[in-house]
Protein backbone atom coordinates (compact mmCIF):
# COMPACT_ATOMS: atom_id res chain seq x y z
CA UNK A 1 0.00 0.00 0.00
CA UNK A 2 3.01 2.27 -0.14
CA UNK A 3 2.51 2.73 -3.83
CA UNK A 4 1.60 5.83 -5.76
CA UNK A 5 -0.80 5.97 -8.65
CA UNK A 6 -2.51 8.88 -10.25
CA UNK A 7 -6.20 8.19 -10.65
CA UNK A 8 -8.86 10.03 -12.56
CA UNK A 9 -10.97 12.42 -10.49
CA UNK A 10 -13.89 10.02 -10.90
CA UNK A 11 -12.18 7.46 -8.65
CA UNK A 12 -12.36 8.43 -5.01
CA UNK A 13 -9.23 7.60 -2.98
CA UNK A 14 -11.37 5.54 -0.58
CA UNK A 15 -12.78 3.37 -3.38
CA UNK A 16 -9.33 2.92 -4.87
CA UNK A 17 -7.72 1.98 -1.54
CA UNK A 18 -10.48 -0.53 -0.79
CA UNK A 19 -10.00 -2.15 -4.20
CA UNK A 20 -6.21 -2.31 -3.82
CA UNK A 21 -6.58 -3.85 -0.34
CA UNK A 22 -9.13 -6.41 -1.56
CA UNK A 23 -6.86 -7.38 -4.46
CA UNK A 24 -3.78 -7.53 -2.20
CA UNK A 25 -5.63 -9.89 0.13
CA UNK A 26 -6.22 -12.14 -2.85
CA UNK A 27 -2.49 -12.15 -3.68
CA UNK A 28 -2.95 -10.26 -6.97
CA UNK A 29 0.49 -9.03 -8.19
CA UNK A 30 1.23 -5.28 -8.15
CA UNK A 31 1.51 -5.08 -11.93
CA UNK A 32 -1.95 -6.63 -12.37
CA UNK A 33 -3.43 -4.29 -9.73
CA UNK A 34 -1.97 -1.36 -11.68
CA UNK A 35 -3.62 -2.68 -14.82
CA UNK A 36 -6.99 -3.08 -13.08
CA UNK A 37 -6.79 0.50 -11.77
CA UNK A 38 -5.96 1.72 -15.25
CA UNK A 39 -8.99 -0.14 -16.64
CA UNK A 40 -11.22 1.54 -14.06
CA UNK A 41 -9.62 4.90 -14.90
CA UNK A 42 -10.20 4.38 -18.60
CA UNK A 43 -13.80 3.20 -18.28
CA UNK A 44 -14.79 5.98 -15.85
CA UNK A 45 -13.15 8.65 -18.03
CA UNK A 46 -14.97 7.33 -21.11
CA UNK A 47 -18.38 6.75 -19.53
CA UNK A 48 -18.47 9.74 -17.19
CA UNK A 49 -19.57 7.44 -14.36
CA UNK A 50 -17.84 7.28 -11.01
CA UNK A 51 -16.15 4.04 -9.98
CA UNK A 52 -18.89 3.04 -7.53
CA UNK A 53 -21.59 3.42 -10.19
CA UNK A 54 -19.62 1.67 -12.95
CA UNK A 55 -17.94 -1.11 -10.95
CA UNK A 56 -19.96 -1.47 -7.74
CA UNK A 57 -18.43 -2.21 -4.34
CA UNK A 58 -14.61 -2.64 -4.49
CA UNK A 59 -14.60 -5.93 -2.54
CA UNK A 60 -17.27 -7.46 -4.79
CA UNK A 61 -15.44 -6.29 -7.91
CA UNK A 62 -12.15 -7.76 -6.66
CA UNK A 63 -13.94 -11.03 -5.97
CA UNK A 64 -15.47 -11.16 -9.48
CA UNK A 65 -12.09 -10.45 -11.09
CA UNK A 66 -10.35 -13.26 -9.23
CA UNK A 67 -13.21 -15.76 -9.03
CA UNK A 68 -11.81 -17.92 -11.81
CA UNK A 69 -8.28 -17.94 -10.40
CA UNK A 70 -7.30 -20.56 -7.87
CA UNK A 71 -5.70 -19.21 -4.70
CA UNK A 72 -2.14 -20.33 -4.11
CA UNK A 73 -1.09 -20.66 -0.51
CA UNK A 74 2.44 -19.93 0.64
CA UNK A 75 4.14 -23.07 2.00
CA UNK A 76 4.52 -23.14 5.80
CA UNK A 77 8.32 -23.27 5.38
CA UNK A 78 8.27 -19.89 3.56
CA UNK A 79 6.11 -18.31 6.28
CA UNK A 80 8.51 -19.64 8.95
CA UNK A 81 11.55 -18.32 7.05
CA UNK A 82 10.00 -14.85 6.57
CA UNK A 83 8.91 -14.62 10.20
CA UNK A 84 12.26 -15.94 11.44
CA UNK A 85 14.10 -13.21 9.51
CA UNK A 86 11.88 -10.50 10.98
CA UNK A 87 12.28 -11.99 14.44
CA UNK A 88 16.09 -11.44 14.43
CA UNK A 89 15.65 -7.68 14.21
CA UNK A 90 12.72 -7.80 16.63
CA UNK A 91 14.87 -9.60 19.26
CA UNK A 92 17.57 -6.97 18.78
CA UNK A 93 15.02 -4.22 19.31
CA UNK A 94 13.61 -5.86 22.47
CA UNK A 95 17.12 -6.40 23.92
CA UNK A 96 18.18 -2.79 23.30
CA UNK A 97 14.96 -1.36 24.72
CA UNK A 98 15.10 -3.69 27.74
CA UNK A 99 18.64 -2.50 28.54
CA UNK A 100 17.52 1.12 28.41
CA UNK A 101 14.44 0.48 30.59
CA UNK A 102 16.34 -1.77 33.05
CA UNK A 103 17.81 0.09 36.03
CA UNK A 104 20.47 -2.47 37.00
CA UNK A 105 23.89 -2.98 35.41
CA UNK A 106 22.93 -6.42 34.07
CA UNK A 107 20.09 -7.66 31.88
CA UNK A 108 18.32 -10.69 33.35
CA UNK A 109 17.09 -13.19 30.77
CA UNK A 110 14.15 -15.10 32.23
CA UNK A 111 12.29 -18.27 31.25
CA UNK A 112 9.29 -16.09 30.42
CA UNK A 113 11.41 -14.08 27.96
CA UNK A 114 12.58 -17.15 26.07
CA UNK A 115 9.15 -18.77 25.93
CA UNK A 116 7.67 -15.41 24.90
CA UNK A 117 9.96 -15.29 21.86
CA UNK A 118 8.79 -18.75 20.79
CA UNK A 119 5.17 -17.63 21.24
CA UNK A 120 5.81 -14.52 19.12
CA UNK A 121 7.26 -16.67 16.32
CA UNK A 122 4.26 -19.02 16.39
CA UNK A 123 1.84 -16.07 16.65
CA UNK A 124 3.37 -14.32 13.61
CA UNK A 125 3.17 -17.47 11.48
CA UNK A 126 -0.40 -18.10 12.62
CA UNK A 127 -1.41 -14.51 11.77
CA UNK A 128 0.01 -14.80 8.27
CA UNK A 129 -1.67 -18.14 7.66
CA UNK A 130 -5.02 -17.09 9.12
CA UNK A 131 -5.04 -14.05 6.81
CA UNK A 132 -4.09 -16.25 3.84
CA UNK A 133 -6.89 -18.70 4.57
CA UNK A 134 -9.70 -16.26 5.29
CA UNK A 135 -8.79 -13.34 3.00
CA UNK A 136 -11.82 -13.75 0.69
CA UNK A 137 -14.13 -12.92 3.60
CA UNK A 138 -12.59 -9.67 4.71
CA UNK A 139 -14.18 -9.06 8.12
CA UNK A 140 -13.70 -12.68 9.14
CA UNK A 141 -10.02 -12.60 8.14
CA UNK A 142 -9.44 -9.37 10.05
CA UNK A 143 -11.28 -10.64 13.13
CA UNK A 144 -9.37 -13.94 13.12
CA UNK A 145 -6.00 -12.18 12.69
CA UNK A 146 -6.87 -9.69 15.44
CA UNK A 147 -7.80 -12.60 17.71
CA UNK A 148 -4.44 -14.32 17.08
CA UNK A 149 -2.50 -11.08 17.71
CA UNK A 150 -4.35 -10.32 20.96
CA UNK A 151 -3.90 -13.92 22.16
CA UNK A 152 -0.17 -13.82 21.30
CA UNK A 153 0.44 -10.52 23.07
CA UNK A 154 -1.56 -11.71 26.10
CA UNK A 155 0.46 -14.93 26.27
CA UNK A 156 3.78 -13.04 25.97
CA UNK A 157 2.87 -10.59 28.76
CA UNK A 158 1.59 -13.42 30.98
CA UNK A 159 4.75 -15.50 30.43
CA UNK A 160 6.98 -12.50 31.16
CA UNK A 161 5.14 -11.75 34.41
CA UNK A 162 4.72 -15.32 35.66
CA UNK A 163 7.92 -17.13 34.66
CA UNK A 164 10.51 -14.84 36.24
CA UNK A 165 13.17 -17.47 36.92
CA UNK A 166 16.46 -16.06 35.62
CA UNK A 167 18.26 -18.24 33.10
CA UNK A 168 21.24 -15.93 32.57
CA UNK A 169 22.42 -12.41 33.31
CA UNK A 170 24.26 -10.36 30.73
CA UNK A 171 26.01 -7.01 31.36
CA UNK A 172 24.03 -4.16 29.80
CA UNK A 173 26.99 -3.11 27.62
CA UNK A 174 27.25 -6.60 26.12
CA UNK A 175 23.48 -6.92 25.72
CA UNK A 176 23.18 -3.52 23.99
CA UNK A 177 26.04 -4.41 21.66
CA UNK A 178 24.49 -7.78 20.78
CA UNK A 179 21.05 -6.17 20.34
CA UNK A 180 22.45 -3.42 18.10
CA UNK A 181 24.40 -6.00 16.07
CA UNK A 182 21.23 -8.06 15.58
CA UNK A 183 19.31 -4.94 14.52
CA UNK A 184 21.92 -3.54 12.14
CA UNK A 185 23.03 -6.96 10.87
CA UNK A 186 19.45 -7.88 10.02
CA UNK A 187 19.00 -4.54 8.21
CA UNK A 188 22.25 -5.03 6.23
CA UNK A 189 21.26 -8.57 5.24
CA UNK A 190 17.83 -7.23 4.23
CA UNK A 191 19.47 -4.49 2.12
CA UNK A 192 21.75 -6.95 0.33
CA UNK A 193 18.82 -9.31 -0.30
CA UNK A 194 16.68 -6.42 -1.60
CA UNK A 195 19.36 -5.39 -4.08
CA UNK A 196 19.77 -8.98 -5.26
CA UNK A 197 16.08 -9.93 -5.48
CA UNK A 198 13.43 -7.56 -4.10
CA UNK A 199 10.36 -9.14 -2.53
CA UNK A 200 8.28 -5.94 -2.54
CA UNK A 201 5.64 -5.80 -5.25
CA UNK A 202 4.40 -2.23 -5.57
CA UNK A 203 1.51 -1.32 -7.84
CA UNK A 204 2.83 -0.30 -11.25
CA UNK A 205 1.13 1.18 -14.28
CA UNK A 206 0.74 -0.83 -17.50
CA UNK A 207 3.77 -0.35 -19.71
CA UNK A 208 5.95 0.96 -16.86
CA UNK A 209 9.69 0.51 -17.36
CA UNK A 210 10.56 -2.83 -15.66
CA UNK A 211 13.88 -1.42 -14.42
CA UNK A 212 12.08 1.55 -12.84
CA UNK A 213 9.57 -0.82 -11.20
CA UNK A 214 12.45 -2.95 -9.88
CA UNK A 215 14.22 0.10 -8.45
CA UNK A 216 11.03 1.12 -6.59
CA UNK A 217 10.63 -2.40 -5.20
CA UNK A 218 14.28 -2.41 -4.06
CA UNK A 219 13.80 0.97 -2.34
CA UNK A 220 10.64 -0.28 -0.59
CA UNK A 221 12.48 -3.40 0.65
CA UNK A 222 15.45 -1.35 1.90
CA UNK A 223 13.12 1.05 3.70
CA UNK A 224 11.38 -1.91 5.36
CA UNK A 225 14.75 -3.42 6.34
CA UNK A 226 15.81 -0.24 8.19
CA UNK A 227 12.48 0.43 9.91
CA UNK A 228 13.36 -1.50 13.09
CA UNK A 229 16.78 0.18 13.60
CA UNK A 230 15.08 3.55 13.03
CA UNK A 231 12.37 2.62 15.49
CA UNK A 232 15.06 1.58 18.03
CA UNK A 233 16.89 4.90 17.67
CA UNK A 234 13.69 6.89 18.15
CA UNK A 235 12.55 4.65 21.03
CA UNK A 236 15.88 4.86 22.87
CA UNK A 237 15.95 8.62 22.35
CA UNK A 238 12.47 9.03 23.82
CA UNK A 239 13.26 6.76 26.80
CA UNK A 240 16.55 8.53 27.58
CA UNK A 241 14.85 11.90 27.24
CA UNK A 242 12.07 10.85 29.62
CA UNK A 243 14.64 9.51 32.11
CA UNK A 244 16.55 12.78 31.97
CA UNK A 245 13.33 14.75 32.46
CA UNK A 246 12.29 12.61 35.43
CA UNK A 247 15.77 12.99 36.99
CA UNK A 248 15.54 16.76 36.66
CA UNK A 249 12.06 16.85 38.15
CA UNK A 250 13.03 14.54 41.07
Amino acid at each position, binding site marked *: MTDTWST*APTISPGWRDELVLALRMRDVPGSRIGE*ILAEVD*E*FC*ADSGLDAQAAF*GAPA*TYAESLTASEGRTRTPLRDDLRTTGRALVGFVGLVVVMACVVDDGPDLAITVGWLLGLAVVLVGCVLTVRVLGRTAPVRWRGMAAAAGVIVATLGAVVALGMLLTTTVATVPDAVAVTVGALLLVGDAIVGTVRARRQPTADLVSA*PGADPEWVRRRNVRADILAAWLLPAFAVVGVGILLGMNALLDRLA
Partner: protein
Amino acid sequence: MSSDPWPGEWLRGVLDVCVLAVLAEGSTYGYAITARLDELGLGSVKGGTLYPLLVRLEQADLVTTQWRPGVGGPGRKYFALTPAGRAELSRRGSAWRAFADLTVAIVDPSADPTAAAFAASAPSERLPTPRRTA
Protein backbone atom coordinates in the same frame (compact mmCIF):
# COMPACT_ATOMS: atom_id res chain seq x y z
CA MET B 1 -25.97 -5.74 -14.30
CA SER B 2 -27.78 -3.55 -16.81
CA SER B 3 -30.04 -0.51 -16.65
CA ASP B 4 -32.18 -1.92 -19.49
CA PRO B 5 -35.26 -4.08 -19.20
CA TRP B 6 -33.63 -7.42 -20.16
CA PRO B 7 -33.58 -9.68 -17.12
CA GLY B 8 -30.14 -10.16 -15.64
CA GLU B 9 -30.29 -13.97 -15.89
CA TRP B 10 -30.87 -13.73 -19.66
CA LEU B 11 -27.89 -11.40 -20.09
CA ARG B 12 -25.65 -13.61 -17.98
CA GLY B 13 -26.22 -16.45 -20.42
CA VAL B 14 -25.74 -14.48 -23.62
CA LEU B 15 -23.27 -11.70 -22.74
CA ASP B 16 -20.05 -13.60 -23.48
CA VAL B 17 -21.11 -14.59 -26.99
CA CYS B 18 -22.35 -11.04 -27.65
CA VAL B 19 -18.99 -9.60 -26.53
CA LEU B 20 -17.22 -12.07 -28.84
CA ALA B 21 -19.50 -10.90 -31.66
CA VAL B 22 -18.65 -7.23 -30.98
CA LEU B 23 -14.94 -8.06 -30.97
CA ALA B 24 -15.38 -9.91 -34.28
CA GLU B 25 -16.08 -6.46 -35.79
CA GLY B 26 -12.53 -5.40 -34.87
CA SER B 27 -10.31 -4.82 -31.86
CA THR B 28 -11.72 -2.28 -29.44
CA TYR B 29 -11.65 -1.09 -25.81
CA GLY B 30 -13.89 -1.53 -22.77
CA TYR B 31 -16.28 1.39 -23.01
CA ALA B 32 -16.60 1.00 -26.79
CA ILE B 33 -17.74 -2.60 -26.25
CA THR B 34 -20.37 -1.38 -23.76
CA ALA B 35 -21.49 1.37 -26.13
CA ARG B 36 -21.78 -1.07 -29.03
CA LEU B 37 -23.80 -3.56 -26.96
CA ASP B 38 -26.09 -0.71 -25.92
CA GLU B 39 -26.41 0.40 -29.56
CA LEU B 40 -27.33 -3.17 -30.55
CA GLY B 41 -30.14 -3.11 -27.99
CA LEU B 42 -28.65 -5.24 -25.25
CA GLY B 43 -28.56 -2.41 -22.73
CA SER B 44 -25.86 -0.62 -20.82
CA VAL B 45 -23.45 -3.18 -19.43
CA LYS B 46 -21.46 -1.89 -16.44
CA GLY B 47 -17.68 -2.07 -16.22
CA GLY B 48 -18.04 -4.30 -13.15
CA THR B 49 -19.73 -6.90 -15.36
CA LEU B 50 -17.73 -6.42 -18.54
CA TYR B 51 -14.13 -6.59 -17.29
CA PRO B 52 -14.44 -9.84 -15.28
CA LEU B 53 -16.01 -11.38 -18.41
CA LEU B 54 -13.12 -10.12 -20.54
CA VAL B 55 -10.67 -11.60 -17.99
CA ARG B 56 -12.35 -15.00 -18.36
CA LEU B 57 -12.23 -14.74 -22.17
CA GLU B 58 -8.54 -13.82 -22.02
CA GLN B 59 -7.78 -16.70 -19.66
CA ALA B 60 -9.52 -19.03 -22.14
CA ASP B 61 -7.26 -17.65 -24.92
CA LEU B 62 -10.31 -16.35 -26.82
CA VAL B 63 -9.13 -12.75 -26.56
CA THR B 64 -5.78 -10.95 -26.56
CA THR B 65 -5.10 -7.55 -25.03
CA GLN B 66 -2.81 -4.62 -25.76
CA TRP B 67 -2.31 -1.30 -23.97
CA ARG B 68 -2.13 1.69 -26.27
CA PRO B 69 -1.01 5.07 -24.91
CA GLY B 70 -3.74 7.72 -24.63
CA VAL B 71 -3.41 11.42 -25.34
CA GLY B 72 -3.25 13.11 -21.93
CA GLY B 73 -5.27 10.27 -20.43
CA PRO B 74 -4.66 6.94 -18.79
CA GLY B 75 -4.34 5.04 -22.09
CA ARG B 76 -6.58 2.35 -23.43
CA LYS B 77 -6.61 -1.41 -23.20
CA TYR B 78 -7.64 -2.92 -26.52
CA PHE B 79 -9.19 -6.36 -26.82
CA ALA B 80 -8.98 -8.47 -29.99
CA LEU B 81 -10.41 -11.85 -30.92
CA THR B 82 -7.99 -14.76 -31.37
CA PRO B 83 -8.55 -17.54 -33.95
CA ALA B 84 -9.80 -19.67 -31.05
CA GLY B 85 -12.19 -16.83 -30.16
CA ARG B 86 -13.56 -16.77 -33.71
CA ALA B 87 -14.07 -20.54 -33.63
CA GLU B 88 -15.83 -20.24 -30.25
CA LEU B 89 -18.05 -17.44 -31.60
CA SER B 90 -19.02 -19.62 -34.54
CA ARG B 91 -19.77 -22.61 -32.31
CA ARG B 92 -21.61 -20.66 -29.60
CA GLY B 93 -23.38 -18.52 -32.23
CA SER B 94 -24.86 -21.61 -33.91
CA ALA B 95 -25.89 -23.01 -30.56
CA TRP B 96 -27.59 -19.73 -29.62
CA ARG B 97 -29.44 -19.54 -32.92
CA ALA B 98 -30.78 -23.06 -32.40
CA PHE B 99 -31.70 -22.24 -28.80
CA ALA B 100 -33.40 -18.97 -29.79
CA ASP B 101 -35.42 -20.77 -32.52
CA LEU B 102 -36.44 -23.37 -29.99
CA THR B 103 -37.59 -20.87 -27.40
CA VAL B 104 -39.52 -18.88 -30.02
CA ALA B 105 -41.23 -22.07 -31.13
CA ILE B 106 -42.16 -22.88 -27.55
CA VAL B 107 -43.33 -19.40 -26.65
CA ASP B 108 -45.08 -18.57 -29.94
CA PRO B 109 -45.90 -21.70 -31.99
CA SER B 110 -47.75 -19.67 -34.64
CA ALA B 111 -44.71 -17.54 -35.44
CA ASP B 112 -43.51 -19.62 -38.44
CA PRO B 113 -44.21 -22.98 -40.16
CA THR B 114 -41.23 -24.65 -38.52
CA ALA B 115 -42.50 -23.53 -35.17
CA ALA B 116 -46.02 -24.69 -36.01
CA ALA B 117 -44.68 -28.13 -36.95
CA PHE B 118 -42.72 -28.17 -33.72
CA ALA B 119 -45.82 -27.25 -31.74
CA ALA B 120 -47.86 -29.94 -33.49
CA SER B 121 -45.42 -32.65 -32.53
CA ALA B 122 -46.13 -34.83 -29.54
CA PRO B 123 -44.88 -33.39 -26.25
CA SER B 124 -42.77 -36.49 -25.67
CA GLU B 125 -40.94 -35.76 -28.95
CA ARG B 126 -40.14 -32.11 -28.31
CA LEU B 127 -39.33 -32.05 -24.61
CA PRO B 128 -36.49 -33.90 -22.96
CA THR B 129 -37.45 -36.56 -20.45
CA PRO B 130 -37.21 -35.09 -16.97
CA ARG B 131 -34.31 -36.50 -15.02
CA ARG B 132 -34.88 -38.00 -11.64
CA THR B 133 -32.64 -36.34 -9.13
CA ALA B 134 -31.49 -37.82 -5.88
